[in-house]
């Protein structure tokens, strides 16, 4: 079975500076991969190259085996990739209601009205936002906006959802609550996901596997236990030591 998302030998350069260097990654269908690394390690660039907002200078991006980007060419446009994204700033469209935010992508993908409404009702119920359909993002609390963002991504039933540090800047309590919602939703729908974070506790709480990035490269991949058992570098060891001291986030 081919990987849901496959990256092979990808190199990305911004303004002459190499930000991703010969990076390869693979995410199996239904798997949640946590991409962990400090600021500036190139995590977000990996997410953007998968989405199709950045074209790799070299290397290939495949989605379910189909080549989407290759060697400086964008073969499948972002809107045709069947993915969904949750950005750090959530990027909720301020002029649309909660239902409007959810319906936008379904309309774009030609989902019939009856199915569209059913899907919106179902996902809003699942994230605890029933009754908020007509509210606008500006009228919601921080936690409610996070739920809208994840609902907007999952309502599309995408081939994979990409999450770019969606929980940074939240307090621990809210983070724990939302992580538990994310995990439950991703698992019950068997959704493939790439979760980008700089926080090992979030990575450990959500990821089936963790890929550690440093300076544009993946330096180690595996489960939390395998990373602990055999850290590949002093960088990974330091990350794990920090984590041991901090405790877990998912209770």
């Amino acid at each position, binding site marked *: 079975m081919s990987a849901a998302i496959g990256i092979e030998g990808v190199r990305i350069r911004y303004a002459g500076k190499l930000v991703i260097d010969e990076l390869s990654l693979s995410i199996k269908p239904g798997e949640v991969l946590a991409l962990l690394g400090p600021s500036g390690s190139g995590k977000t660039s990996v997410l953007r190259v998968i*989405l*199709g*907002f950045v074209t790799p200078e070299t290397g290939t991006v495949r989605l379910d085996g189909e080549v989407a980007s290759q060697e400086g060419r964008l073969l499948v*446009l*972002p*809107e*045709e*990739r*069947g*993915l*969904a*994204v949750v*950005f750090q*700033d959530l*990027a909720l*469209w*301020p*002029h649309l209601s909660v239902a409007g935010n959810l319906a*936008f*992508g379904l309309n*774009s*993908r030609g989902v019939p009205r009856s199915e569209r409404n059913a899907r919106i009702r179902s996902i809003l119920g699942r994230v605890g936002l029933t009754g908020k359909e007509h509210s606008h993002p500006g009228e919601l609390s921080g936690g409610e906006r996070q739920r809208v963002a994840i609902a*907007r991504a999952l309502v*599309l039933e995408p081939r994979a959802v*990409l999450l770019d540090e969606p929980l940074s800047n939240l307090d621990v309590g809210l983070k724990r609550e939302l992580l538990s919602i994310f995990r439950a939703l991703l698992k019950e729908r068997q959704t493939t996901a790439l979760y980008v974070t700089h926080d090992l506790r979030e990575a450990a709480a959500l990821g089936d596997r963790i890929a550690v990035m440093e300076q544009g490269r993946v330096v180690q991949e595996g489960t939390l236990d395998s990373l602990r058992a055999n850290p590949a570098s002093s960088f990974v060891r330091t990350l794990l030591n920090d984590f041991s001291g901090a405790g877990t986030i998912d209770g």
Partner: protein
Amino acid sequence: MLVLSAAGAVVLLTSALPLARLLTEIPGAGAAALSVLSAFRPWLLLIRSLMLAAAVTACAIAIGVPLGLLIARTDLPGRRALWMVHAFPMFLPPFLLALGWFQLFGREGFLGGEVTARLLFSEVGLVAVLALTFSPVVTSMMALALLGMDASLEEAARVAARPWRVATRILLPAARPALGLAAILVFALSVSELGVPMFLRVDVFPAAVFARLGGIRYAPGEAFALVVPLMPVAIGLLFLERRLVGAGSFAVAGLRGMSRAPIPLGHWHPALAAVSWSIAVAGALPLGALALRGARGRGFGQLPQWIGLAPWTSLGTAVVAATVIVAVGLVLGHGVARRLRGASMLDALAVLAFVTPASVLGVGLIAVWNHPAMGGLYASVAILIVGYIARYAVVGIRAVASVVLQSPVHLEEAAAAAGARFWRRLTRIILPVNLRGVAAGLLLAMVFCLRDFETAVLYYPPGREPLPVRIFTLEANGPPPVVAALALSHVVLTAFVVAGGSLLVLRRRRA
């Protein structure tokens, strides 16, 4: 890509084609070019025009920079009202203000005599009139840049330095891109200016071009030749714009309100308030003079006989042209902000058409559209619309680019990832999210079209002249009170458009 190409085609067809056509006309006008350009006088005239424009720019900066700082960042009393009074004249054709100054300081003016008239009808008078007219451009761009600046920049400095030092060492240097853009804008408008120098009988280069197209010295070949030296001026201004300002120019549009604590003026308060208000009132004084002249000579009563269709032509063409300008600006401005391929080149062409002296662009438009195959268009008001789009496309592009740059790119990327194609993203996300800025761009484009005189005067269709052209042509022979009343009717029309548009934009903002 199709949408971007269509918007690009509008810019190429209206702005770039006339300029390109001029280049091809010049060899054909070789003999005329040689005879005109081998003479000493045109070059002298060009140097004089450039020096006058430089003097206007320097004076406008000297007035606009301190006034912009006072309005945006100090506790000057009534600074919003001051800004409005000071800025309004820049929405009017400058020769209208010259007409007002004439009513005040002309030989038979309300405050005039032999000496004031001689001063007004000279280079000094020209520079003074234009500097007062264009200084609000500098003031407004400085004020907008200072208001849009991140508050923390200033607050970090206020902790360590006195307000005056913060203003001179932090705020003003940070607003340098806005000042650069304002200076280029004022210089370009001054070089283009035709109405004021012709009215004040000061010989300038654009008037020489105009005389060979619309005057008694009709010689189109010579007109083509005369635009040659102006083209390097335009390219030089474009180069300066790219070099000095570039993407920084967009920093001018971030209007975040005056929520920060203003810098206290202390014991300078009364003196600076008096000077600021004097400048603002002086700029608006000619409008009062026009009103008085119109009322005293019963000019307003005779308006219906003289005004004709001019206001409707002005308003109708401005509405249509501004709508096209903003539609093109929405696509290309978004492209510039998001660095889409080709958008920057089209933006440069639009900038070139704007900084190119209006007489050059006008001659180019005549060369392209005054053709038997285009007869219907050239003889109708459509040529006015084409001309406005050609010259002011940049207004729409820059207005949209500045607001799009301030809205998070993730809003569009989330829509693309959700499956929305470009047109759907443009109409459902980009336009609604940036609606206030787009509406402001529409208003600005309309005002530019309404105040245009220099471009339209070269090719307006017979009997369908816009209001500024009608006033200018009547000024020589018409009764002065009627001319004053006509000028004031233009002021009222502009005031309605600006006030109505601003209300809509502000209401949208509150909503």
